[in-house]
């Protein structure tokens, strides 16, 4: 059985897909989502084989969502759009399947045939490459549209969406990052470098090999020995700014780097 989740904010659009998939013997629709957040939850709880993802959705767009998926656990992705020339070009370049609204049953059958073929080859290279491509294309599209403003994070059993602005600082831990908010801490399975590439570089700045800070969370800077600085956040947390990253932070704070004594 191919387990499918359908994410589209327009009910008739979902209805059309569930109805058609319902007539396929080897497909089971295990979840429907009317917004990006619900899609994340369905993805989390159902672990589907295939995610049909509309690009324009409230809460979290299809592109924002896909850009944050971990390719290791992501399902096959088929994007749906009514009109988005830029995205369509990107999908075509990466040989991804996508649906242009409106579509007919023949188009859906063709899409499902491809999905079957990819899934039959199991965890073969082709399938993995397809998913990886899809996530990469989404990341590229998202970057072109501007930095991420919302992040999908695990919260206990479930996933939740947080505003990027709410993060005070980010701590790298091997292939994981810990996001420190005023009250909470979330852990994401992504390297710091990769996450920073998707965030606003004028807001999140690296101050240490393993630490990035939200500039608006900084309260004071105190010079230490050897050109290092002590960074105190509004929350009271104290971090260290290493000499190596001093220039980057000072430029963003609109200050010139003081000469070393």
């Amino acid at each position, binding site marked *: 059985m191919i387990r499918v989740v359908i994410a589209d*904010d*327009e*009910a*008739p*659009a979902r*209805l*059309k897909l569930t*109805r058609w998939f319902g007539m396929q013997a080897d497909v089971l629709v295990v979840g429907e989502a*009317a*917004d990006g*957040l619900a899609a994340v939850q369905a993805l989390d709880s159902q672990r589907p084989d295939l995610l049909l993802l509309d690009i*324009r959705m*409230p*809460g979290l767009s299809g592109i924002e969502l896909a850009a944050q998926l971990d390719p290791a656990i992501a399902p096959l992705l088929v994007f749906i759009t*009514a*009109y988005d020339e830029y995205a369509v070009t990107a999908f075509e370049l990466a040989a991804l399947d996508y649906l*242009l*609204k*409106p*579509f*007919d049953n023949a188009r859906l059958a063709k899409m499902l045939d491809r999905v079957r073929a990819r899934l039959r080859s199991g965890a073969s290279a082709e399938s993995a490459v397809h998913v990886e491509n899809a996530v990469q294309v989404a990341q590229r599209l998202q970057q072109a549209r501007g930095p991420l403003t919302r992040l999908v994070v695990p919260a206990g059993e479930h996933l939740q969406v947080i505003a990027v602005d709410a993060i005070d600082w980010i701590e790298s831990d091997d292939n994981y990052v810990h996001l420190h908010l005023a009250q909470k801490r979330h852990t994401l399975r992504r390297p710091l470098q990769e996450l920073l590439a998707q965030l606003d570089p004028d807001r999140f700045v690296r101050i240490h090999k393993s630490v990035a800070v939200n500039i608006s969370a900084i309260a004071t800077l105190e010079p230490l020995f050897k050109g290092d600085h002590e960074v105190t956040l509004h929350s009271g947390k104290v971090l260290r700014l290493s000499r190596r990253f001093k220039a980057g932070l000072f430029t963003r704070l609109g200050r010139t780097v003081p000469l070393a004594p």
Partner: protein
Amino acid sequence: MSTHQNKVLQQWPVGLLKPLLAAWGLFWLLMILVAVHDNFGGPVVRWWQPLVWEGSSALVLTALLVIMLRYSRRQQALLATPWRWFWQHLQWLPLLSGLFVLLTYGLRHLAYGLAGLTYEHEGWLMIWAYETLKLALFLGLWLGVLFGLQFFAGWHEQQGRLLAAQRTLAEARLLQLKSQLQPHFLFNTLNTISALIPTDPERADVLVNRLADLLRGYLSLDAATLVPLREEVRLLQHYADIMTSRFAPRVAVRWQLAIAALERSVPPLLLQPLLENAFRHGVEPSLAPVTIDIDARVDDDVLVLRLRNAPAAGGHRAGAATDGNGIGLRNCRERLRAQYGLAASLTTEQQGDAFIVTIRIGASPL
């Protein structure tokens, strides 16, 4: 002579030249009547003598006026600096008064001579000084009138040009509106219809016809003519019906339309971009259900149109309701200004999570 006059007539707005000439005629009629009345029954003065005095003055000054009108037209660029304008005219005063004395007194001498009398007056120098003073006052008065009229004519002309430019802009905007029929809207609507065909063919049929009506309405629009609000509302309702089908149950549209308001005229597609905004920036990015209220009423002979979108109780909006609203609002404002000038206004207001656009259109278009 006639070509000269035509030129003057062409240059002057006809509406202004007529009252100016009428005032001029009336002024001299009064002068003559007063002079005749003052000297009536006097022992020394014959009845026709005041007529000669004032008549000669009127004749000479009318000739001077016509020359002045021509001259003054060339000085129009100076209207913005009144002192220079007056100076340009008044610097001719000594010459004018010399000419005036010569011509007027010549005419009087001629008239008296024909009657076999002698026209007696003070010495020429005295006369010249006296007439110069009188002429200065006289010229001051009439130059004031002339300046006012020309200034008004210039303002009027500029206003007309401005309005024409605004109309052109408004027409361009409408064209842009028509051509920018959102592809997103069109393709998503087709997809909705396609989804409904197997499950609810009747509704699919209704939507196809709504869409066709909407397209026909857009295509047949003409920027120059106003449409009854009833017609504008009909298109709006088609659009709202389609959008509600797509986004139900996330949206509810409520209408409150006074009959008197529906009879009033509005520029075509005035409200359409505002309703599109309400869906695009109010409904589409919202997780919570949104209510859109559209009211039309006539208040003290002013047509008041109000469009309000707000998340249903309990819900709140993810982003600001005004994001990206700008172009639609500016467009709408420009069209109102072009059509109604100051008689119409568009205001926006953020009340908590609710975003409200209010249009007021006064009774008489420009």
